[in-house]
């Protein structure tokens, strides 16, 4: 199956920000360690795998998983809008990272490489889900219930649910690059510069994708409001 972006092992194809440009220090809002630290860990895992010390490599990889799984789960959840699917996608992405760790370029930020793999896994899952849903028309498989309190007045719950469904539908209709840029920036707390490194496109291209994505979403949601 083809993926929209070059997958693991291909490296980056456009100018990327150097490692030194990565923000330093722990990000307080996510608890994710610096790019330097997780990149060092990934290089260590790579070294251990090459030395056939797999038990130690897995142990180190567990630390990497701990560092990234919260943010990865948020991104996957925003992309797939389903908890179970997001969970599977994050697992698949981590396993894919480990099995392709030899192709990791230790000079580049691990977070960008990993997020790129995660996005590709999400795109694959989204396509598979769309194929399934085409054969199960009428069943709502896209939501996992959300977190809205049932104690609120019913109309508010219904309205919120419908609005979220409309946004989910509008998001899934976006072209993949626009969607990836929007999800990473809006839900993943990534800056356009970071997204450019993840997607392997220029920062100006990311900004264009964002701009178009927001306008498409606005138009779709306006249509939804007008139809009500």
């Amino acid at each position: 199956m083809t993926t929209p972006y070059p997958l693991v092992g291909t490296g980056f194809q456009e100018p990327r920000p150097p490692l030194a440009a990565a923000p330093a220090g722990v990000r307080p809002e996510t608890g994710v360690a610096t790019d330097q630290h997780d990149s060092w860990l990934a290089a260590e895992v790579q070294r251990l795998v090459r030395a056939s010390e797999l038990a130690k490599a897995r142990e180190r990889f567990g630390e990497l998983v701990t560092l990234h799984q919260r943010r990865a789960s948020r991104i996957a959840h925003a992309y797939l809008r389903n908890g179970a699917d997001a969970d599977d996608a994050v697992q698949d992405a981590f396993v894919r990272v480990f099995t392709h760790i030899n192709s990791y370029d230790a000079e580049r930020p691990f977070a960008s490489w990993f997020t790129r793999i995660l996005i590709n896994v999400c795109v694959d899952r989204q396509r598979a889900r769309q194929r399934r849903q085409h054969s199960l028309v009428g069943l709502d498989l896209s939501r996992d219930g959300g977190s809205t309190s049932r104690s609120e007045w019913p109309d508010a719950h219904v309205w919120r649910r419908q609005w979220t469904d409309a946004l989910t539908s509008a998001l899934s209709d976006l072209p993949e690059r626009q969607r990836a840029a929007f999800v990473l920036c809006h839900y993943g707390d990534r800056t356009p510069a970071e997204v450019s490194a993840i997607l392997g496109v220029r920062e100006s291209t990311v900004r264009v994708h964002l701009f178009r994505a927001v306008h498409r979403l606005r138009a779709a949601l306006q249509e939804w409001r007008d139809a009500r």
Partner: protein
Amino acid sequence: MPVDPHLSDEQLLDRYFDASDSDERAAVHLFRCSACADRLQAITGGLEEDYARERTAADGYFTAARLEAQRVRVLDRLVQPREARVIAFPAAHAPAAAHVPLRRPSRLAASAAALLLFAGGFTGWRLVHDHQPRVEQTDARLGPGSHRAADERLLSEVEGSLVNSQIAALQPLDAITPMEGR
């Protein structure tokens, strides 16, 4: 031509998605201009709320326990990676894995089954082909003391004498009867 002092939609979105953007002039303008602030609100209306709702939903699903279970499952899968099922189609293009030789016990079992099948077939063939001669021998082994043999012998002699006498009586007729090719 007068320059529009307000920010473009692109600039507004840049501010929205990247607050650390180094465009100081845009930041200052947005801070002071209520018209641009209103436009930004119109452009991104609902997105902030959706961001908060989505974040709550994601964090509500991925509890600490679920994240720990996720980590454990990932590490388990590294020990025993799930192998993809390979379905050979068409058969001529079956992957190399499909031609992996059978393990030793399987081969021994297959050989034993083939041997038993061959032995069974041979025995059956022998039974079928040895049946009739054995019956004849049984009749022959009855011996002269057997009533049945004696009766058959007697009947044969009677029949033979009748045939021989008829032949002798018919010999003159045979002599005068024209035969083909004579």
